[in-house]
């Protein structure tokens, strides 16, 4: 009896083997994890289990490192690879890395002000000065001037920031660096910063928790997080001078600007008149010549990978907005597909073939 069970297991194993499913392994940013998980789930069902996706959300830093060590089919990062990394990859692997944006995220200023109902308005300069510790109370003239109808309490501002390294922090600091020369010079942009003031809390949930518990707190979180948890968040003045509240339309609009061909661009302080100024792409990382990646074992795997990314950029986009991530604008989608069509495997231009089908 036991023997028969054993043989049964063997047969089952053999069957799954015979089905020849491809498993695509990816690693990287935690921010888009719910979205990638949704893609993976939908795509497995679409292909009848032939292509499985295994995405490990170990953080952008880990994602880039795994991508360079070639243990994964694709990496994922909240920020594109910088020039130095791009050069390093060209030197080491004799091919380019592609940074393919597939979704947009936004970061919103969230606050806890008892008695204030309508969304507050901020400018980048005011936000930078608050985070530099120069504006200390809520009834400061600089804030009052932007919100003439609101009775602001004389509470001290408790600045709350992420304590963990985070793409969210990068986007926030990137924006502040663009609008405030003083911020750029004193603090700069990065996933972890030397913060001038404030309380550090771990994760979006930590920041939200501290903000909720502290009257007078001001922090920053992902829009998805703020929406799902019903946090109060403010409108931010964009480059065109409009006060924009982050929503799916205004994030999508943020990418409606001339984009460079390699998509490595910072969307913060966007010039788009309807765009929300603190938005950014989140990226998939691929090698242009897939055979340079040790993790890609065969042409079949390479094709499955390109097909999956192609699906994300086209049909998969409809999952973005239901999960509160920004979808690609037509311009951005074109750019992303153009990048994907550059993918080759051993010289064969499989990217072009799959994208144009």
């Amino acid at each position, binding site marked *: 009896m036991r023997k028969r069970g054993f043989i049964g297991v063997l047969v089952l194993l053999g069957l799954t083997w015979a089905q020849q499913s491809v498993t695509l392994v990816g690693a990287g940013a935690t921010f888009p994890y719910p979205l990638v998980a949704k893609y993976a789930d939908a795509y497995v069902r679409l292909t009848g289990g032939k292509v499985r996706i295994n995405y490990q959300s170990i953080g952008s830093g880990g994602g880039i490192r795994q991508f360079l060590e070639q243990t994964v089919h694709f990496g994922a990062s909240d920020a594109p690879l910088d020039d130095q990394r791009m050069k390093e990859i060209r030197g080491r692997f004799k091919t380019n890395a592609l940074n393919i944006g597939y979704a947009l995220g936004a970061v919103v200023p969230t606050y806890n002000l008892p008695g204030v109902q309508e969304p507050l308005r901020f400018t980048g300069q005011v936000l930078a000065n608050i985070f530099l510790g120069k504006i200390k109370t809520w009834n400061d003239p600089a804030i009052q001037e932007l919100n003439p109808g609101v009775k602001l309490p004389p509470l001290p501002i408790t600045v709350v920031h992420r304590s963990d*390294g985070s793409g969210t922090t990068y986007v926030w600091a990137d924006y502040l660096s663009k609008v405030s020369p003083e911020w750029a010079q004193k603090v700069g942009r990065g996933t972890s910063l030397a913060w001038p003031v*404030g309380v*550090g809390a771990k994760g979006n949930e930590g920041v939200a928790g501290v903000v909720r518990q502290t009257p007078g707190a001001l922090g920053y979180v992902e829009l998805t997080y703020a929406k799902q948890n019903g946090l109060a968040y403010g409108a931010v003045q964009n480059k065109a001078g409009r006060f924009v509240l982050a929503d799916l339309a205004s994030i999508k609009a943020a990418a409606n600007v001339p984009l460079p061909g390699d998509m490595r661009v910072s969307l913060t302080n966007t010039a788009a008149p309807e765009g929300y100024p603190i938005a950014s792409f989140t990226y998939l990382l691929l090698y242009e010549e897939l055979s340079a990646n040790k993790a890609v074992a065969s042409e079949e795997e390479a094709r499955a990978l390109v097909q999956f990314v192609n699906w994300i950029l086209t049909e998969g986009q409809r999952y973005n907005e239901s999960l509160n991530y920004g979808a690609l604008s037509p311009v951005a989608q074109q750019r992303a597909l153009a990048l994907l069509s550059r993918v080759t495997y051993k010289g064969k231009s499989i990217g072009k073939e799959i994208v144009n089908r």
Partner: protein
Amino acid sequence: MRWLYTHFGDRIFAFILLLLATGVMALALLMAYELYRGGSPVLHGFGLLGFALDTQWDPVRGKFGAWPYILGTLIVSLSALFLSFFPALATAIFVAEYAPKWLAQIINFLLDLMAAVPSVVYGLWGIFVLAPWLRDKVQLPLYFWASEHAPALLPLLGVPTGYGLMSAILILASMVVPYTAALARDAIALVPKEHREAAYALGATHWEVLRLAILPLARGGILAGAFLALGRAVGETMAVTMVIGNSHKLPYTIFGGAATMPSVIANEFTEAVEDLHLSALIAVGFLLFLVAMLVNFTAAYVLRRQERLVKGAL
């Protein structure tokens, strides 16, 4: 199979034991070596002491100094140990000597439960209950009192947000109480009956028996518990990270934020994109390893001296 029950079999057994035992040692050494290797770009670039004593930690500009984290770790864990030691000892004495059996059982059960609660739960409780309560009921009143009567204290107190050194120390103290208490309780229970009886026979009161016959003999176990608690406090990551405020700006204040070695590793590891940043975090891990080793060696030294003292007394 018979050959197993001969000298030869004996030797195989001894060899396997040796292999496993050296494996444990090799594991510890390998861990230290790997941490050193991972951190070596920073340790060589800044020098071990330069890295450990520098106060600047700015990943954006590639400047790394671990002193704020070392200082934070020492302040938080030593204060937590100090705060928790006497209540824990009192609990142990009460359970072992005074409490009726049913009550002792309940207390023992609760102590075990306290040790078993995951630290993230302590952290959540800290964020949502302890920190707001401390801010409203302790820090703000103290702050206002100080600003009127003793403005010199203000720079020492810092900004009363609730998330900072004070909360971290209190949370950590409550987390390590069961360790000290459980070991002290067992040490007290292990004191031979003859010693108590001898003391009683001399006409000692309950308190005198405790002070003269029991505590001196149990001191080794009590100290061992304290060091175990200290080791736990030095390495505690999650709960501390959640309430400490995570600011590495020196000088630290009582209410204001601080940071510890485990907290900065847990915080910045996942998104450390630059190689130097990652290396600096691993180097912090190496320093933490050294600090933990130091604590253990001190513990071993104190315990051995204690044992010798007790043996001398007997």
